[in-house]
């Protein structure tokens, strides 16, 4: 008796939860059945606040017409999604339209798994000249638009403007050099009585690649793959060394804090910045949304820093593009294109920039009230767009078109970690070069590229 009484409450709870679960799933099935629109499965890798913003875009599309219904499905990180996309192609689980990030562009084009967006652009007589040319160029080959850029970012440098004002430190120029940043970081560290670390640079291969782009240096031969498939990588070059020396110098003087690599490092770094533990960091402009929403301090933004004694060459875009799978019937592919077209509308892109910090790709977005209001409220959110506009596209700052970029990035990060922990810069880069080149040669051989 004693036990039965004790058991009643949990039993009722469990049964109640089960009943609710069954009821809701039946309802879901019913509502699906009543919706006769063609389903467009959309795989994406937007987490956190960006996912909410993306769902807004999808909802907007679904409400805008009666023929198609886009079903967004989160696939984890950019890195993980690539293999899922490639391995499920041709099966019933594969997506109709998917988001794949910048450095997988070469892989996606080589795969032959996608229908070039150009085909639909031509059929539809869509005017692409409104879409930022730098971003379009990144995802096209031989003048054919392969994927369509969607979320496009720029790496920028963030600083805590309130703290700089408080300690009377002169803020860095709009396009700072390495030593400009060192000066601010050291002053902040000293004047705060060592309470606030001056700066951090996340162990992130993307940032290293951007430092090369900004100092007019290519990582891979054949102009970073723009004039042919790369066969050799040269990481141990004077520009990488200078970038790492700059970081090393700050580590030595104590004003640098190392948050490590990976997603948790990114989160820790943001948390450290918001709680005044570190004053300067470099990250994608896509973080602006998060950094303004939760920030009691004034946010400062500058361009990506460049080496001393030379002008900034400009950085490559980051982010991802939308691609249409060619393993789905024509009707579904058409629907996927309709969704892409919708996502590039001026007001959709404007709202997307406001919500996330990714740059609005449609030129007409700048005229929209949403962005005008945003710039009035926080003028600094203009900086990433200006950085993109000032940079003249060339082979150094248009991304690296090479397969195996994910592995290359891992090896770059190992080299960075070695240096951060006191290892020799030249040696660390040589080791990375050796592994990257070995992998590149094996990959070229396996894929039958010359």
């Amino acid at each position, binding site marked *: 008796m004693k036990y039965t009484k004790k058991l009643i409450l949990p039993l009722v709870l469990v049964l109640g939860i089960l009943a609710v679960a069954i009821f809701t799933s039946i309802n879901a099935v019913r509502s699906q059945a009543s919706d006769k629109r063609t389903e467009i499965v959309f795989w994406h890798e937007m987490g956190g606040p960006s996912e909410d913003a993306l769902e807004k875009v999808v909802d907007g599309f679904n409400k805008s017409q009666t023929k198609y219904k886009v079903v967004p499905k989160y696939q984890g990180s950019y890195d993980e999604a690539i293999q899922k996309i*490639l391995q499920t192609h041709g099966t019933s689980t594969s997506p109709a339209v998917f988001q794949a990030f910048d450095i997988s562009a070469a892989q996606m084009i080589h795969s032959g798994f996608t229908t070039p967006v150009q085909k639909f652009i031509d059929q539809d007589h869509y005017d692409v000249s409104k879409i930022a040319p730098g971003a379009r160029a990144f995802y096209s080959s031989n003048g054919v638009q392969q994927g369509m850029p969607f979320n496009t970012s720029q790496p920028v440098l963030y600083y805590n403007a309130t703290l700089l004002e408080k300690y009377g430190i002169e803020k860095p120029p709009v396009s700072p050099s390495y030593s400009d940043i060192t000066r601010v970081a050291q002053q902040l560290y000293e004047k705060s009585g060592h309470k606030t670390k001056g700066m951090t640079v996340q162990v992130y291969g993307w940032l290293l690649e951007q430092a090369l782009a900004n100092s007019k240096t290519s990582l891979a031969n054949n102009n970073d793959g723009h004039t042919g498939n790369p066969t050799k990588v040269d990481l141990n070059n004077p520009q990488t060394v200078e970038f790492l020396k700059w970081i090393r110098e700050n580590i030595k003087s104590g004003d640098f804090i190392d948050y490590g690599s990976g997603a*948790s490092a990114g989160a*820790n770094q943001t948390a450290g910045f918001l709680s005044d533990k570190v004053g300067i960091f470099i990250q994608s402009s896509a973080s602006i949304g998060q950094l303004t929403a939760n920030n009691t301090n004034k946010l400062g933004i500058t361009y990506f820093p460049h080496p001393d004694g030379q002008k900034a060459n400009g950085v490559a875009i980051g982010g991802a593009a939308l691609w249409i799978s060619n393993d789905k019937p024509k009707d579904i592919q058409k629907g996927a294109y309709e969704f892409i077209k919708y996502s590039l509308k001026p007001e959709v892109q404007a709202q997307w920039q406001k919500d996330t910090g990714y740059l609005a790709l449609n030129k007409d977005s700048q005229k929209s009230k949403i962005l005008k209001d945003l710039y009035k409220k926080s003028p600094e959110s203009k900086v990433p767009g200006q950085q993109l506009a000032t940079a003249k596209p060339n082979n150094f700052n248009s991304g690296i078109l090479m397969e195996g970029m*994910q592995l290359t990035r891992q090896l770059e990060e*190992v080299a960075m*970690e070695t240096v951060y922990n006191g*290892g020799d810069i030249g040696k660390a880069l040589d080791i990375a070069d050796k592994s990257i080149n070995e992998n590149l040669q094996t990959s070229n*051989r396996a*894929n039958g590229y010359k």
Partner: protein
Amino acid sequence: MLKTPATSEVASEKKSVSKKKFVFRLNANDKYFSMFFLGPSLLLLGLFVFYPLFKTLYISMFLTDTFGNTTVFTGLQNYVNLISSADFMNSLFVTLIYVLAVTVLTITMGLLLANLASKKLPGIGIFRTLYSMTMGVSVAVAAIFWLFMFNPSTGFFALVSNALKLTPINWLTDPKNAMLAVIITTVWMNLGFTFLILLGSIESVPRSLYEAAEVEGASSSRQFFKITLPMISPTLFFVSTITIIDAFKSFGLIDLITKGGPTNATNMLVYRIYKDAFYSGNYAKSSTEAIILTVIIAFFTLIQFKFLEKKVNY
């Protein structure tokens, strides 16, 4: 006294076995009959264990292209490349260190806690619950919890070292400490299960043995080593086997806490296999690594059954 019934039982069993054999031999359908029983499990094993195993072996002898198709036959070149690469040897080394540390620490601490908790003291129930609590924590929750603890600017350890004016330890960014951090987290995770199993086993040792020892004036440490340890040795064997295999397969915590970094200091074999396959898309390399891992685990299991099992007192 005790021996006679036991031996006679064994004898009668032997008799019945030979009788059965005799009956079976008469049956012409014997082979088909046994296949009827073995078939389903053989089919499942073949489909889900042997086929993937041989396919992995096959892939490991080729180069694979971007989509994982085997393209160029290279024989044993993948194995040679791996074994001669310092990077892979480092992974092998850190895996061994990790497995060893996790197994030794989990079992000694589990044993210590179980022995303490088996004492009849007031309020011991609370401690038993506390010690076994980590069993209910999922890997993801544990990882997030420890990530908060290790956070260099707002974490618990950083706050303590700041308050004591010590230089803060870079838990997850210094290669030496990262391994320690992962080991601490794993041991913490494993402890609940190990503790519970060992406690149950200690509790089931007959009281009369301790009473007899006390009459003879044996000290409590002597009682532990001469009675408790031999009596729970089957459980210890089980727990150590499980812990070693689990430690070799450790993935979730590493993925969530260090991602194999910094400078590959925690890039264990299983994590490496995952990264090479599903990050880098190099299926040939990861298949080769998987085969090597299979050989290593088989080797350890064999050793355990060959040598350790003989020392076990059933």
